[in-house]
């Protein structure tokens, strides 16, 4: 079987979020053993909030708690001087040829895929969401060996099924998108420290200074203002569905969720060690608090979609909680901004 090939010594890494996982596992595979999910997330300035105007996803509001798909991998690699190859394809055939070539060269690669046709996922999770990320690390006869970072163990897909998910259609259509570190040099502790500082600064910029009212910390207030109107405007049933969508985007796998506030708090904890700066521990606590508040608000939202809470006062309560979360996150990023890291 001439095409049989498996990249030896590829180590599967399970993470809370798929793109962090692909980034972490591919960088570790290339010798950067220090890489962790929180570090990849923080250096890639992964924390974000946006309610995209005029767009609905699965008949609900388009909300994201993290930065743009692809950005974490690109930024983290760049910070560490890692050269990245990223390719999209016009046809499934050329996409598969290229993938086979990389496997023959023993290079594990990241692939952007759609979730809907991902046959190993439980049916309940298979919506049309196109920014899921997996690693292909080998081929056995006609099936590809995969490492899906949201899973405890490795898995596989037939060539036909893999082609289907790589060419899913719709928003964020992957078009066979494949990416991997091409050249990894020596990474010094100083580069890691600089990467951490850069990641924090960029995240401060994205959360505090992005123009418009629907993104960054102000985006959280934007959503709060919408929620106050949902009960009258949409009716209790649809309002419940909308709130459910927020909860799923916040926490669920396969939608881009993953408890990002705790992840960022964990990043700051690691950053404190790298930078020998205990002030970051205090700010890490602020993000833990924000993460806890998001979860508490999710429980309230569940009260609505479970039909237990129906009054306008409950919607006001949820909105007030979000406004409060905004101030906690705003203050935390202002503190980060005033630290003058790396100076």
């Amino acid at each position, binding site marked *: 079987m001439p095409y049989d090939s498996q990249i030896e010594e590829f180590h599967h890494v399970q*993470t809370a979020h798929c793109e962090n996982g692909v980034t972490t596992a591919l960088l570790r595979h290339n010798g950067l053993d220090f890489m962790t999910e929180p570090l990849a997330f923080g250096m890639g300035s992964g924390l974000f909030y946006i309610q995209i105007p005029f767009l609905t996803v*699965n008949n609900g509001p388009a909300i994201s708690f993290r930065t743009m798909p692809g950005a974490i991998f690109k930024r983290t690699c760049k910070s560490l001087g890692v050269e990245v190859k990223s390719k999209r394809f016009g046809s499934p055939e050329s996409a598969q040829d290229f993938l086979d070539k990389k496997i023959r060269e023993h290079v594990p690669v990241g692939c952007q895929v759609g979730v*809907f046709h991902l046959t190993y996922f439980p049916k309940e999770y298979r919506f049309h969401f196109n920014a899921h990320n997996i690693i292909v690390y080998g081929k056995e006869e006609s099936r590809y060996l995969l490492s899906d970072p949201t899973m405890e163990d490795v898995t596989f897909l037939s060539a036909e099924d893999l082609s289907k998910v790589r060419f899913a259609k719709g928003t964020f259509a992957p078009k066979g998108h494949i990416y991997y570190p091409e050249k990894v040099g020596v990474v010094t502790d100083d580069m890691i420290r600089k990467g951490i500082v850069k990641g924090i600064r960029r995240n401060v910029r994205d959360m505090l200074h992005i123009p418009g009212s629907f993104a960054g910390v102000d985006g959280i207030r934007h959503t709060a203002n919408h929620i106050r109107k949902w009960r009258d405007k949409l009716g209790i049933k649809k309002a419940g569905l909308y709130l459910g969508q927020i909860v799923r985007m916040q*926490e*669920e796998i396969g939608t881009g969720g993953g408890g990002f506030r705790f992840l960022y708090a964990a990043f700051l*904890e690691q950053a404190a060690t790298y930078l020998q700066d205990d002030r970051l521990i205090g700010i890490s606590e602020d993000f833990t608090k924000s993460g806890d508040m998001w979860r508490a608000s999710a429980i309230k939202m*569940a009260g609505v*979609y479970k039909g237990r809470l129906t009054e306008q006062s409950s919607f006001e309560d949820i909105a007030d909680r979000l406004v409060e979360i905004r101030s906690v996150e705003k203050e935390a990023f202002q503190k980060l901004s005033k630290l003058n890291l790396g100076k």
Partner: protein
Amino acid sequence: MKKEDLPQDPGALDNFTREVCYVKNKDGKYETALSRGWDVKKDALDNAWVEVNGRIEEARQAVINGEKSPVYYFMELRLMDIPLLSGYTGFLGFFVKRHFKPSVFKGLSDRKLSKYAAAFDITLDELKNFKG
């Protein structure tokens, strides 16, 4: 979130995987832990499916009543909307909408219908003969 507060609620993930979560251990440091799931999320997902299944049932009735074509029903069944179906078939949204009409659907060529069948992962016969 403290490690001991991490929910372990059974759900759709059970035969698939547990998920990684970042939690605080006894020393106040972050570590990862595995969770089976959380009812708050499970209820949101279940609720989304109740809505989806309602839409599918409505679409089925509309086909039975002769108001909509099978294209409309299978679009709902596959959780698609017009822009997405348009992406999978290559037909413009305007035409997709027209193909929802039973009278227009009847006149569609097999070539066009097979594009829909492929997008829906069904056979041409299943699409043509769907009565609701």
